[in-house]
């Protein structure tokens, strides 16, 4: 008989084991039963992921940002792989809000899948019209406002980089949508002071913040000696940007501790999501990692539940912002400091059983 320690280090497991753990999350007034969502643009409108995960179980599907009119997007190449990440320049290809509501949202609603609709526009007026289209749609978990797009009325200046432009968008969306549906402002990290932008959108009525969108980047193909993307520059995402994203969440939570944050940027495993929760996010989105593993959102949720349980938390909500607490003033949660010891009877040691 061997004595072994079961290390519950979050790992990519295929087991569907999940602990009985309170993973509910408050995102701007609405409570989701699970804190892990998909990320806009990384899950289409949910359908394609149906074979790989239980869409009703995850926090919500965040749909690809939709605009007022159908859009073809940018020419190819639209992506380049980078170390632990990727650069994309899709150009918001999509069917336009009317087809989206009629086809994609209907599909999600028919299946009872919680949905966060992401909208994008090129002008304050376009955002107003989008908001009005969503006004009478019942049952949305939230509306995410992607303001990382160029404002055609201001020389293509990105809304998210300008506090007053960002506020103008959030204010019109908040005023024109159902008050019971939270409105989340999705911010860009490509600003000098993300806290300033966060304050201005919250003042304008945002109920919560989605942090972060991609970082502007560029890759040059050394064979053609030209930019790798047809769009020249693109948005960087994936684990490569995680430290930037965690920093943004930490700074914003420090300044605005009562504003719920949907954290994202490079989450691939449960412990990655845990960093965001500890930094102050109430829930997280899994984006690029879903390209690697289409079941990632569900797996991350499972791993996150174990990671929280292992650290002695009794609910996910208890861990939100934990990294901000001073170590000497707050006792560590009653963590299972002692590793769980179990008896392994006449069994071959398996990969995740570390001998002690």
């Amino acid at each position, binding site marked *: 008989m061997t004595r072994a320690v079961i290390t519950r280090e979050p790992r990519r497991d295929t087991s569907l084991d999940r602990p009985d753990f309170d993973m509910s999350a408050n995102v701007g007034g609405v409570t989701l039963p699970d804190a892990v969502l998909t990320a806009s643009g990384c899950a*289409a409108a949910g359908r394609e992921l149906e074979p*790989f995960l239980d869409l009703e179980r995850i926090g919500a599907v965040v749909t690809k940002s939709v605009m007022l009119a159908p859009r*073809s997007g940018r*020419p190819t*190449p639209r992506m380049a*792989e980078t170390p632990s990440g990727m650069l994309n320049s*899709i*150009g918001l290809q999509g069917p336009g809000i009317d087809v989206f509501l009629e086809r994609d949202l209907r599909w999600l609603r028919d299946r009872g899948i919680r949905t966060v609709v992401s909208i994008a526009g090129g002008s304050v007026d376009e955002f107003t019209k989008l908001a009005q289209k969503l006004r009478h749609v019942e049952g949305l978990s939230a509306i995410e406002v992607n303001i990382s797009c160029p404002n055609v009325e201001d020389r293509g200046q990105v809304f998210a980089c300008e506090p007053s432009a960002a506020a103008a968008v959030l204010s019109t969306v908040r005023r024109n949508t159902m008050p019971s549906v939270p409105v989340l402002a999705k911010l860009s990290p490509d600003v000098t002071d993300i806290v300033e932008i966060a304050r201005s959108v919250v003042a304008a009525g945002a109920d919560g913040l989605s942090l972060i969108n991609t970082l502007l980047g560029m890759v040059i193909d050394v064979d053609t000696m030209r930019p790798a993307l047809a769009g020249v520059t693109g948005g960087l995402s994936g684990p490569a940007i995680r430290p930037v994203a965690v920093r943004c969440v930490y700074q914003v939570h420090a300044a605005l501790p009562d504003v719920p944050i949907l954290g994202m940027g490079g989450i691939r495993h449960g412990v990655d999501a845990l960093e965001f929760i500890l930094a102050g996010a109430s829930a997280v989105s899994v984006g690029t990692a879903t390209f690697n593993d*289409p079941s990632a959102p569900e797996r991350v949720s499972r791993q996150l539940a174990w990671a929280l349980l292992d650290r002695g938390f009794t609910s996910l909500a208890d861990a939100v912002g934990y990294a901000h607490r001073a170590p000497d003033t707050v006792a560590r949660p009653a963590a299972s400091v002692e590793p769980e010891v179990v008896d392994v009877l006449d069994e071959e040691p398996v990969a995740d059983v570390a001998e002690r």
Partner: protein
Amino acid sequence: MVTAETAASARGKTAETKAVVQVKSEVIALRRAGSYYVMTLTAAGIPELTRPGHFVAVSCGGDDGATLLRRAFSIHNVASRGVYGGTLDIVFSVVGKGTRWLSERHRHDSVEIVGPLGRPFALPRQPVSCILVAGGYGSAPMFMLAEALRARGCRVDVVLGASTEDKLFGVLDAKRIAATLTLTTDDGSVGERGRVTDLLPAVLERTDADVVYACGPMPMLARVAEVAHAHGAHAQCLVEESMACGTGICMTCVLPVIGDDGVTRMLRSCTDGPVFRADRVRWADIGTVPPDAYGAPAVEESS
């Protein structure tokens, strides 16, 4: 075709009826074939679902690796029985980080795959005469296709080409299944000197084929489309657009395709393809968004 409906109804209780599966595979064998590698992987559930032209999306680099995006490979062969309970073969050449990593796997290593993906080749109802044209590793999916066509009583002629002899894949198998086999290399070291598309018109004339199936580099496919059209043959091409996910969620793999309604749309080659009717793809416009495409910007955007 893997529709969302079939996938949805397949979820849950009846795992064996799922239209697409994600599996942690084990490497059973890896061998060289000319300049290519042939990898045999366990793939429980995939062989039964596979049709010629389907592909798998392979995760390269492990759970914490820096190469996050999926790599697409045509399914070359499947075996649904045997000690491993279902295996499949892929054929690949090492071109970058992911394929290098794959080439360094050993027997028993695990590799995660998703499949079968995409829309397969459409097969003719009648026992018509068909020509299979492939460049380089583009022949990988053609042998399953040839078997399926022959099972329907179709005549199959094969044209294989590559820049050099070591890049011709499956010549012996092609000899076995084809009524006639035409080989080309750029330097003429094997077969005829030149490109497959230089020889295709003659084969079309000789066989009076009704259908041409093609897989290879885009310029080759564009030329096949022209040649087939000129001979009044129907053509289906398996395209290779750069992919990040293979499952239809990233929108990177698009190309302009004309729909039944005559409208050009930027379609995803991973879900709407990778096999397209040759006369529907706007070959000359690949890499652009044609101004008349659905949702194309009225004026060129500044960013």
